[in-house]
């Protein structure tokens, strides 16, 4: 270590900058506070249970056939379905209709077929029941909401 460096003084602005930045970083981390890009670092923080509640969105064609909305192959902007569905009960009927419309449009663009309605189901899966390499039995589903294309939608 050379003596010139030892004699140097760190500017006051640098001290204040580091103090404020680290304080904000530590407070967000300790309190789990989200002020993005500062974050509470909740990565897989909850303990998962074998029985896992979830949601499923399906499109219905003119013949009444259901097809799960293929979120995985839709554009990036439509792939936040897990969170959108989690917040589905908090949406107004108008907001639900707008969400369903967005999914129906994307599904129609993808498949070329016409979507008559979008149905939203609550699911419950027990991942501890296995058949081979897949979960079994199929998830229990309860119809939560139906969005007819061009209509406002209705429960069940």
């Amino acid at each position, binding site marked *: 270590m050379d003596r010139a460096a030892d004699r140097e003084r760190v500017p006051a602005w640098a001290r204040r900058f*580091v103090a404020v930045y680290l304080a904000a970083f530590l407070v967000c981390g300790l309190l789990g506070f989200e002020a993005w890009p500062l974050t509470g670092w909740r990565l897989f923080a909850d303990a998962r249970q074998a029985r896992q509640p979830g949601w499923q969105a399906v499109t219905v064609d003119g013949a009444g056939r259901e097809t799960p909305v293929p979120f995985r192959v839709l554009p990036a902007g439509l792939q936040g379905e897990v969170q959108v569905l989690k917040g589905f009960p908090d949406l107004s009927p108008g907001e639900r209709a707008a969400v369903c419309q967005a999914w129906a449009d994307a599904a129609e663009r993808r498949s070329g077929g016409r979507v008559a309605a979008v149905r939203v189901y609550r699911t419950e899966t027990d991942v501890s029941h296995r058949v081979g390499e897949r979960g079994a039995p199929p998830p229990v589903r309860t119809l939560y909401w139906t969005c007819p294309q061009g209509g406002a939608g209705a429960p069940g």
Partner: protein
Amino acid sequence: MRRAETLLARLEGWVFAPGDPRRLAALRIGLSAILAVRLATGPYVELAGQPAALFRPISFLRLLDAMPPPGLVAVVQVLAVAAAVLAAAGVAARVTLPLAWAAAVPLIAMTSSLGKTAHNDVLLLLCLVPLLPAPTAEAWSPAARRRPAPGRWPAPAPGRWPAPAPGRWPAPAPGRWPAPAPGRWPAPAPGRWPAPAPTSRRYGWPVRTVLVVVAGAYFFSGLAKLLHAGPAWVASGNLRWALYASSDAQPHPNPAALLVADRPWLAHLLAAATLLVELGFPLVLWRPRLAWLFVPAAVAFHAGIWMAMRLDYWPMAATVLVVMVDWPALADRLARRGAGGPAVAGAPSGERPASSAADRR
């Protein structure tokens, strides 16, 4: 109270101790390069086409009703990538690095505006913050190649060195310095400047602040698990159920996920190891050699998550590598090996072998 003050003073002394400009430059190069790759490959224009009904904004994006328009996003993305590449190269880094960061923040915020905070780029953004006002391009940059370290060596006229101010010139080790003619210094061989004392307090604090951020990120991830799940995070079937659910959600069963989930003992072991690595990570600040344990563990942890759950955390793993590895020490070691032995022997204090002096620029 007195102990707390002493501890705080020691902490301050550590953060603001002198540092090597090359370590700071290594952070600039590595983190800017990761940012450039991330920004060049991100789905920002695709996200911009999101229907407004699905927009779940985060942070400052709440000011908008929908994702920004694709045209604007494309312009910002090009600007951000160009600035990040220039910052990595050390070109006008005082401007290009803050510009790259400022342009990257709204783009990366878009990826977290689908309803869930995506943490894979957050550590990178946070590690870049201390670099924004720092002199990151005083080594390993085109400007540093062209000039000696500022304030230390006056720029000589070609073939001529101005007489140093009295008391400002270090006395050369006997026999190692050619005696200059009065008022005249021999020109140094191109690319072989005599090494000035490399450390300065200006270069130390950004590096150590970033080290705290990386260590803190892992520690707080572990702490959140303890606070929200408690011992059940390790002791229950938590990891098994998460891996089964993840495998079931993938188009084909995931062999890596099933390998762990089918073996309860392995799932408990990996869960415990994860918590230990996360909570123990700050130990590397106290004992830097422990990085040899924690850094490979963290990289393996992210690789395992990708293999089992297909969650892409490579920017976080790469950030850890860039920040925690002492690149100048590695460069010196390689230079010494290339020179066939410890060429430092007999060098004056603060001076490194010629090859490493050249590396410094």
